């Protein structure tokens, strides 16, 4: 433990005196990423504003009663409607078939078309209800006895709920990405950089257990990564608060954030940080130069993010404690590597296995912490509802 603490303290001291670590692991998550988020939202707001100002262009090719019913949105002549829709000159097209069925054509890739679709769907629902009612009354039945058309289910949560769900999917991935990116440089530095400068040798000839050296280095890198995630989280919160205020809403409060689900998510991140550091460490161990180490780490992270993203949504059973498996496994493999016991092949296999275990552990952890799809699936909507209730 003495040696572990000595290595941990030394690595942290060195890391926080390194300009590059401060830039990549602190300044970027704290300043650059929130700025990018803010900028992206400004762009979306601008785009939404432009769409809002443009009335959707709708064509109706139907019987007179349908046309009357759909007159709420501005209608355009329907001649050549399909061609115009395909060419982007129309946003939506409603056609009535010989059997009276309505077909709605729209383009999902255009926001303006999306808005036209929403307007038409609302009106079509009204039309269907009126027709069903008329048919029933004509047959001498109560107005609600017949429902000749399928009733479409629509999302009653509204745009706010959709936005919250989107955020709850983005934020865990953002935390994971920040963690990984902020770990690359320090990990390459403490392993490959030290080997390049000859300082790793200096440590390895000291009377210190190899596990203490490995654990101290992993611990320091993990702490750096967690600093980055925490800083990034706070900065993102400040950005969201600013954006909420910009949208005319109330300011967000941190107080409502301390839900059990979020605390669990923080716990999962604390487990994930050393695991992430460990398998990045294993991946870069064979690298002989700093640049080669960075290249290897980038490749591994790309693969990991590819694996982690689907795992986040695909998990079905609880068991976040499994996240501890890759930590122990990689620590053992790293110890073996430092002792010169393991060669490149087994290290690669160990890294791959641990990568998979990390992804599985992550996904299981995500599931036990939330009954919805994602880690923050419940925490974030609850938090925003809570803050709105406190700050109407």
């Amino acid at each position, binding site marked *: 433990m*003495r*040696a572990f603490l*000595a*290595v941990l*303290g*030394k690595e942290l*001291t*060195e890391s926080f*005196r*390194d300009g590059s670590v401060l830039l990549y692991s602190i300044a970027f998550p704290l300043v650059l990423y929130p700025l990018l988020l803010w900028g992206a939202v400004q762009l979306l707001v601008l785009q939404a504003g432009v769409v809002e100002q443009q009335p959707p262009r709708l064509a109706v090719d139907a019987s007179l009663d349908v046309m009357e019913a759909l007159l709420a949105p501005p209608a355009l002549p329907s001649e050549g409607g399909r061609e115009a829709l395909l060419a982007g000159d129309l946003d939506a097209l409603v056609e009535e078939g010989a059997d009276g069925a309505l077909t709605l054509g729209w383009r999902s890739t255009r926001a303006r078309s999306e808005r036209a679709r929403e307007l038409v769907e609302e009106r079509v629902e009204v039309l269907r209800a009126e027709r069903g009612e008329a048919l029933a009354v004509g047959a001498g039945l109560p107005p609600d006895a017949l429902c000749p058309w399928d009733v479409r289910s629509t999302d009653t949560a509204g745009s706010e709920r959709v936005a919250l769900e989107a955020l709850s999917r983005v934020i865990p991935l953002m935390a994971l990405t920040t963690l990984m990116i902020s770990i690359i440089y320090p990990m390459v530095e403490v392993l490959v950089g*030290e080997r390049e*400068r*000859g*300082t790793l*040798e*200096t*440590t*390895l*000839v*000291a*009377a*210190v*257990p190899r596990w203490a050296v490995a654990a101290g280095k992993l611990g320091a890198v993990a702490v750096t990564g967690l600093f980055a995630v925490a800083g990034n989280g706070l900065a993102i919160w400040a950005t969201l608060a600013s954006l909420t205020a910009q949208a005319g809403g109330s300011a967000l409060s941190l107080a409502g954030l301390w839900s059990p689900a979020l605390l669990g998510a923080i716990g999962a991140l604390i487990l994930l940080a050393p695991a992430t550091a460990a398998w990045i460490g294993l991946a870069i161990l064979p690298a002989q130069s700093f640049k080669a180490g960075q290249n290897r780490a980038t490749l591994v992270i790309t693969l990991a993010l590819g694996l982690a993203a689907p795992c986040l949504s695909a998990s079905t059973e609880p068991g976040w404690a499994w996240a501890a498996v890759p930590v122990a496994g990689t620590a053992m493999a790293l110890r073996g590597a430092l002792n*010169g016991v393991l060669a490149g092949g087994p290290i690669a296999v160990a890294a791959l296995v641990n990568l998979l275990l990390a992804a599985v552990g992550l996904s299981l952890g995500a599931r036990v912490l939330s009954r919805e799809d994602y880690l923050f699936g419940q925490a974030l909507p609850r938090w925003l509802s809570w803050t709105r209730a406190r700050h109407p």
Partner: protein
Amino acid sequence: MIDVEGLTKRFFGPEPVTAVDGVSFHCAPGRIFGLLGPNGAGKTTTLRMLATLLSPDEGTARLNGHEVREDPAGVRGSIGYLSASTGLYGRLTAWEMIAYFARLQGVADPEARTAELVERFGIGPFARVRCERLSTGMRQKVSIARAVVHQPPILILDEPTSGLDVLVARTFLDFVERARDEGHCVLYSTHIMSEAERLCDRIAILHRGRILAEGSLSELREATGLRYLEDIFVRCVERGGPER
């Protein structure tokens, strides 16, 4: 203090090579044993095996009673290792560097020991300066302090004066002589003949992984009939051992 018997190390790859081939020697306390050889002779590989950085394929090596494969931790606690490639942590100050290794090596009072070494090696004026800003001479002093912080009975020095200017190298050689006088067992690898002549009580000439000749300087002179170590070295290397 150092007993090496039949030490062998092979590296496998497209062209397998036996870097060290059955090397044996002994070094007693208060003596300096020199490993003399050209680049690629196997000096560094030998020393890295003795420092437990590499595992030997064959043979045994016992340092201060600890066998390198059976008790590597005991070996590491008994040696101070210094090589030309040994680096300092650039973002730590000289004081932090020495204190860190004192803590790492389990020194009872790391700060007191650091203060003692800072005083002994004249590090005081730059003790609070980061190592990356130190001159070569200053860095070498810190390196020495780092290597002896746990008072090891054995010093393993692998071409420690490579890249040093004459004055700094001279200071370093003085330190090695003092270490010997204090009873340390010193294993000194070099390809600089004058250093070997000045320092070493016994010299082994290593070439292509094998010891071609071993003895005191006078014994080597007597065996070859040559006066200068350089001539002795060249003759041994030219006659050489068998090709590996």
